[in-house]
C-alpha cells in the first residue's frame, strides 16, 4: 500500500516503524527523531504512573537507551509505540523492584507514589488535578496502567491487549473496574460529588 493512501495515524506509524528499522540497521542517529517525537508522551505516561518528575525523566532515558540496546530485536510487525510502551512497562517494573530492594521493610508497603503538583497547578491552585493524582496513585498498578494507556496515551483496547498479552475483554473489564474504583477513591478524597 502506498503511504499516500494511508490515514494520518498510519502515516505516523509508517514513519516511526521506518525510522526504527533504520535504527535497527545501524543508523542509530535516527533515534533522535523518535526521541523528539515521543519523549513527551512517554514522560507523561511515567508521570501519571509514578507522580515524580525525576523518576519519570530517568525512566524515559532508560527506555530510549534500552531501545538502542535491543534495537536488533525490533520487529516491525506491530506499531513502534506499542514496542516503546512495552519497554516502558518493563523499565517501570524494574524500577519498582529495585526500589523495593532498597527500601526497609516497613516502608515497602506505604504509598508508592510521591505526589507533586506541577507549576501550573501550584499557580492555579489546581485542587482537582491534585486530588485526581492522589486518587490515581491509590489504584492498583494494572488498573492504573490500562486507564492511563487508554485515556492519555490514546492506545486502543486492542493495542493494550497486545501490549499486556491478554484478551481485549480483560482490558475492557480492567478499564471498567478502574474507572469505578477511581471514582470511589476520588469521591472519598473529595468528600463531595464527582462532577
Amino acid at each position, binding site marked *: 500500500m502506498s503511504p499516500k493512501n494511508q490515514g494520518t495515524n498510519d502515516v505516523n506509524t509508517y514513519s516511526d516503524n521506518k525510522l526504527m528499522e533504520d535504527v535497527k540497521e*545501524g543508523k542509530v542517529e535516527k533515534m533522535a*527523531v523518535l526521541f523528539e517525537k515521543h519523549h513527551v508522551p512517554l514522560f507523561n505516561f511515567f508521570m501519571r504512573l509514578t507522580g515524580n*518528575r525525576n523518576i519519570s525523566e530517568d525512566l524515559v532515558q532508560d527506555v530510549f*537507551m534500552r531501545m538502542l540496546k535491543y534495537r536488533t530485536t525490533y520487529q516491525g510487525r506491530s506499531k513502534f509505540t506499542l514496542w516503546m510502551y512495552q519497554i516502558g512497562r518493563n523499565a517501570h517494573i524494574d524500577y519498582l523492584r529495585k526500589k523495593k530492594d532498597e527500601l526497609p521493610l516497613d516502608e515497602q508497603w506505604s504509598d508508592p507514589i510521591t505526589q507533586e503538583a506541577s507549576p501550573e497547578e501550584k499557580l492555579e491552585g489546581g485542587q*482537582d488535578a491534585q486530588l485526581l493524582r492522589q486518587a490515581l496513585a491509590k489504584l492498583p498498578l494494572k488498573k492504573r496502567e490500562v486507564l492511563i494507556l487508554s485515556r492519555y496515551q490514546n492506545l486502543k483496547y486492542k493495542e493494550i491487549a497486545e501490549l499486556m498479552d491478554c484478551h481485549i*475483554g480483560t482490558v475492557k473489564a480492567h478499564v471498567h473496574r478502574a474507572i*469505578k474504583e477511581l*471514582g470511589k477513591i476520588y469521591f472519598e478524597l473529595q468528600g463531595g460529588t464527582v462532577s
Partner: protein
Amino acid sequence: MRCEDIKKSFPDYLVGELEKSAADAIQTHIADCAACRQELEDMSAVWTKLGVLPEEHPSNGLRERFYRNLEEYKAEMNREKPLHHLKQFFASLFYRFRSGRPAYQWVLGFIPLFIGLILGYIMFSKGQDTDLRREIQEMRQMLAVSLLDQRSPTERLRGVNLSYGLKNPDNRTIEALLDTLNNDPSVNVRLAAVDALYLFYNSPQVREGIIQSLTRQDSPILQVALVDLLVSVQERQALESFKKLMAANKLDPKVKQKLEQGIKELSY
C-alpha cells in the same frame, strides 16, 4: 438486553468506539434502567474528570542527557565495529565498479575523498585529533551536498542519510537539504529531508525554511510530517502558515484534522 451485557459496552462507549446500533442499544436500555444510567453517568464523569490533568513537560536536562548518551552509544559502536564498517564499505564500492554502469563512474572522482574519510575515521575512532574531526565533518558535508544533486533518488537519499550524522552543518548543507525538501521529485527523499532537518532545528535558517516549506508542499504525507514536526517543537511562529494551509483548496481531510489539532495545541 440484560444489564450485564450493556455494561460490557461502557468502556467502548467512553472512547467513542461503538457502532451506531450498539450506541443506540445503550441509549434505549438506560432510558428504562435507572441503575445502568447512573453507572454510565458516573463513569462518564470520571472519564471527563481525568482530562483535568495537564500535559507535563520534562526539563531540558532530559534532552541533553539523551543526546549525550546517544553520542556515547555511537562512539561505542564505532569502537567496536570499525573493521566491519570498512569491509562493508569496500564491498559496496567494489560491487558498484564491477557493475560498470556509467551512472556510478562519478564515484571515481570521490576516491581521494573516500580514502581521506577512511583514514580520518580510523584516527578519529582512536580518539585523536579535533582538527581531523573537523575535516571529516567538512568532507561529509561536501559528500552529502554532492549526493543531493544526483539524478538517482537512491543517491539523493544517501545524501540525506549522510547528513544525519553531521553536527552543526554549514549553511550550504542546510540550503541543499531545504532545497531537497521543497523541490525533490521523490516523496521519500523529501520525507527523509524532514527527518534530517528535524535534527538541526536549533538553526534559525532551518526553522524559517521549514515554516515556509509547509505551504509549498502538495503531498499530504509531507504536509502531515511537517505539521507534526512544528507541533512537536512547539513552533508558534508556524501558526500563520497552518492557517494559510487550512484555507487552501482541495486540502486532504486528514491534513485538515492534523492542522486543527496543531492550531489548538500551539494556541494553548
